[in-house]
């Protein structure tokens, strides 16, 4: 059945699939650029880009997006040219690739019809195609039958390997019939580690009584026979292939060193099969999550019932049975919960592509040479977090490029490499992911910060501005040291916005800087906001949930531990002095009776710690955190709410804003602060 609704749904399907392909294409292009800089372009990068463009062409055809299809078609030819070595991967080729990518993105975003045919790009891509193919390959001592059976792509790879000066080998192996494909794959991956298996050719030897098959592998490699032999099975043969002509000087892209492997031509599309996944709208996962949360509440209720039963004389054994069942149910529910959370996870690399393209663009616009590198981009975060991280990260990248990284000339004078380095690093620590963006630029300019702060009336005329003060200042609302609103950096928003956006995600930001050596912005985020292990506490008759990730320890309240420093209460803990406040004070709740709290929760806030007195600790729970809605948004100390069973709701505490509360503490400067690293 088709109807208007179907067309709309299909449109959405097209967009999300096209976006995925473009994202992957973008990642490959970024990889190609990086490899080009390092002087070794691996053929599989180009193959993958080619594959994505090919899929995009098919997709456009399927949904009738003529302009996009046209561009994808010519781009596919262009990439094929690169792949087959007809055309070098030079700066201009990368430019046209990146531009085509950007154009296709906007075509997908705004709808095909809204855009004119991309004739300019089509002409440039077609012009690239007209460049001369490289000269023919050199002669080798390869047997005629092997040369004849090579595909065009394999011929090209052979050519490229010879020109790159690699040794050629012919490996002979005999493998059992039952396991040969598995064995071959294993052998190829072993060999591809240090070279490239150009072609795998079966040979038919008559009179093979045992059910075994023989293969010859054409292998290009930089290492010597001894090394290769180590990778081969005992009974394999190894024969060197002589190359008659010397290495060519011309550097065509695909001629560059290609140590890692590349599959034969037929494998170009093979990876597409790996994508055995389905697309699920996030709301559906949210719904499943809600149900899991509700089930956990039911289980708590079951536990209560079983405990009551266990107390009764006659019902004791029944109670024990229910208790056991409830325990098993709990295990399964936790499995279920983990799986649902797992389904929401996406790797950080999902935003890397966009950032890398932004870096390329901004670096060009500002005449700087900058490379974005990533570490740990496979680290996973909730999809929702990843989506919301994009804009703060873009802002930080803009900042680093505009303020941090110097021009190539300045860098030379400072004795640095002309290419600036931006490093995006992701590390998982327990239930948190720490993302850091570091540049190797000039570091925070304290004098500039001081002047701006004075000009904005945020600092006294003669006030000193050390690193600690500067770190506080740059996160203040209204502080933005960019004078003009330019394309490169600054849209009139400052780091305070970044900080707020990240705090809304339950995250925290820290700025580390070293004069002349660079700036690092460190962001710690919970892996997911959907569910969080929380310590539930009672204070002033209300229940509150505190994310466990923010708690450094809990202890019994002892009157003698609390003293005052300049009229402010502090808690002595193993020789350290922590700011202390009763949670009721922090939340401005009425202190009806001035009873002593029963317990102290020591929370981590930024680099400091805060000790809070609470009446009771009610234990740790996996908590499904819900937004409190627009009427309560921005209320200090509260980041959400959660159901505690029976329709009761508990508030989830937001430690950073709680610590900044004006009572008991005046701003985060009152927090115990460790020396900056």
């Amino acid at each position, binding site marked *: 059945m088709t109807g208007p609704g179907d067309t709309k749904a299909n449109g959405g399907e097209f967009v999300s699939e096209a976006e995925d392909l473009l994202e992957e294409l973008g990642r490959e292009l970024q990889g190609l650029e990086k490899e080009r800089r390092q002087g070794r372009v691996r053929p599989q990068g180009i193959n993958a880009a080619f594959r994505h463009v090919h899929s995009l062409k098919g997709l456009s055809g399927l949904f009738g997006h003529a302009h996009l299809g046209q561009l994808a078609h010519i781009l596919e030819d262009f990439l094929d040219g690169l792949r087959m070595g007809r055309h070098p991967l030079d700066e201009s080729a990368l430019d046209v690739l990146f531009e085509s990518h950007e154009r296709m993105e906007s075509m997908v975003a705004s709808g095909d019809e809204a855009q004119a045919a991309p004739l300019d790009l089509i002409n440039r891509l077609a012009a690239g195609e007209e460049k001369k193919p490289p000269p023919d390959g050199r002669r080798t001592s390869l047997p005629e039958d092997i040369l004849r059976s090579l595909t065009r792509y394999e011929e090209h790879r052979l050519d490229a390997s010879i020109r790159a000066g690699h040794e050629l080998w012919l490996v002979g192996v005999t493998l059992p019939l039952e396991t040969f494909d598995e064995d071959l794959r294993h052998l190829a991956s072993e060999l591809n580690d240090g070279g490239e298996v150009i072609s795998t050719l079966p040979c038919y030897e008559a009179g093979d009584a045992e059910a075994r098959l023989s293969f010859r592998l054409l292998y290009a490699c930089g290492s010597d026979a001894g090394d290769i032999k180590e990778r081969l099975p005992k009974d394999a043969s190894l024969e060197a292939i002589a190359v008659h002509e010397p290495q060519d000087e011309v550097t065509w892209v695909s001629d560059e060193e290609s140590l890692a492997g590349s599959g034969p031509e037929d494998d170009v599309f093979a990876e597409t099969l790996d994508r055995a996944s389905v697309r699920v709208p996030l709301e559906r996962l949210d719904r499943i999550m809600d149900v899991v949360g509700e089930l956990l509440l039911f289980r708590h209720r079951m536990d209560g019932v079983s405990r009551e039963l266990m107390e009764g004389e006659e019902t004791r054994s029944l109670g024990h049975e229910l208790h056991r069942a409830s325990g098993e149910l709990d295990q399964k529910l936790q499995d279920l919960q983990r799986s649902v959370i797992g389904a929401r996870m996406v790797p950080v690399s999902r935003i890397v592509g966009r950032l890398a393209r932004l870096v390329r663009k901004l670096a060009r616009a500002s005449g700087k040479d900058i490379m974005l590198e990533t570490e740990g981009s496979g680290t996973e975060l909730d999809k929702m977090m990843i989506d919301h991280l994009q804009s703060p990260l873009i802002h930080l990248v803009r900042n680093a490029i505009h303020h941090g990284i110097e021009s190539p000339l300045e860098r030379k004078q400072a004795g640095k490499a002309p290419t600036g380095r931006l490093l995006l690093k992701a590390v998982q620590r327990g239930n948190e992911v720490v993302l850091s963006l570091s540049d190797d630029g000039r570091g925070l300019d304290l004098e500039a910060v001081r002047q701006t702060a004075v000009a904005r009336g945020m600092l006294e005329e003669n006030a000193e501005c050390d690193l600690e003060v500067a770190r506080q200042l740059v996160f203040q609302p209204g502080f933005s040291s960019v004078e003009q609103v330019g394309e490169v950096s600054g849209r009139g928003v400052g780091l305070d916005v970044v900080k707020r956006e990240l705090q809304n995600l339950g995250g925290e930001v820290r700025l580390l800087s070293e004069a002349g050596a660079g700036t690092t912005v460190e962001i710690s985020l919970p892996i997911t906001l959907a569910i969080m292990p929380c310590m539930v506490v009672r204070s002033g008759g209300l229940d509150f949930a505190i994310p466990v990730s923010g708690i450094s320890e809990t202890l019994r309240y002892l009157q003698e531990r609390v003293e005052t420093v300049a009229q402010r209460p502090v808690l002595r803990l193993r020789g350290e002095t922590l700011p202390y406040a009763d949670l009721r004070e922090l939340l401005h709740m009425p202190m009806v009776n001035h009873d002593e709290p029963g317990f102290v929760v020591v929370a981590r806030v930024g680099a400091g710690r805060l000790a809070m007195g609470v009446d009771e600790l009610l234990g740790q729970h996996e908590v499904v955190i819900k937004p409190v*809605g627009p009427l309560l948004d921005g209320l200090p100390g509260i980041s959400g*709410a959660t159901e505690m069973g029976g329709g009761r*709701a508990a508030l989830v505490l937001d430690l950073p804003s709680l610590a900044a509360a004006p009572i008991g503490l005046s701003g985060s400067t009152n927090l115990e602060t460790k020396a900056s690293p």
Partner: protein
Amino acid sequence: MSREAMNISDLPPSQGRDPDKAARGATVPVLQVLAFRLAGERYALDIQEIIEILKYRPMTPIPQASDLIHGIVSVRGRIITVVDGRIRLGLEAAEIGAASRIIVLRHGEEPVGLLVDEVLHVEKLPVDNIAPPPSTLVDAAARGIAGVCDTHQESILILLDREAVLNV
């Protein structure tokens, strides 16, 4: 939970606003509203803004929130913020009674509850009979009062604007 929640569809049926009919001039256009009581006065909200009506249940008060916020409550996995109707309209505060209800209203992505003394009934108001608030009530707009309607019943019905009432 269904015992405690009333669905709007359970209330007496009616046609509500009908622009088609109005255009044809066949019948007088009517606005279907839910009438409720606050401090002895009768108030009403457009029924299309209402998701459900809940019996009063214990709520979690919110420290540091304005007095208008009565608390939050979890309803089928959703956290609903409840606005105290009396305080919102500048009427004297009162204890929760057996007839107290929470009218759950659409409001952006998260529904919001309005605490009222008593829910009365669904009523159809001829749009022509709705008059602007009396000129002496200078802060009518700020209180969220959109108009009044004399229904020739016990008292005048005060029509509220959901958006304005919840804009706190």
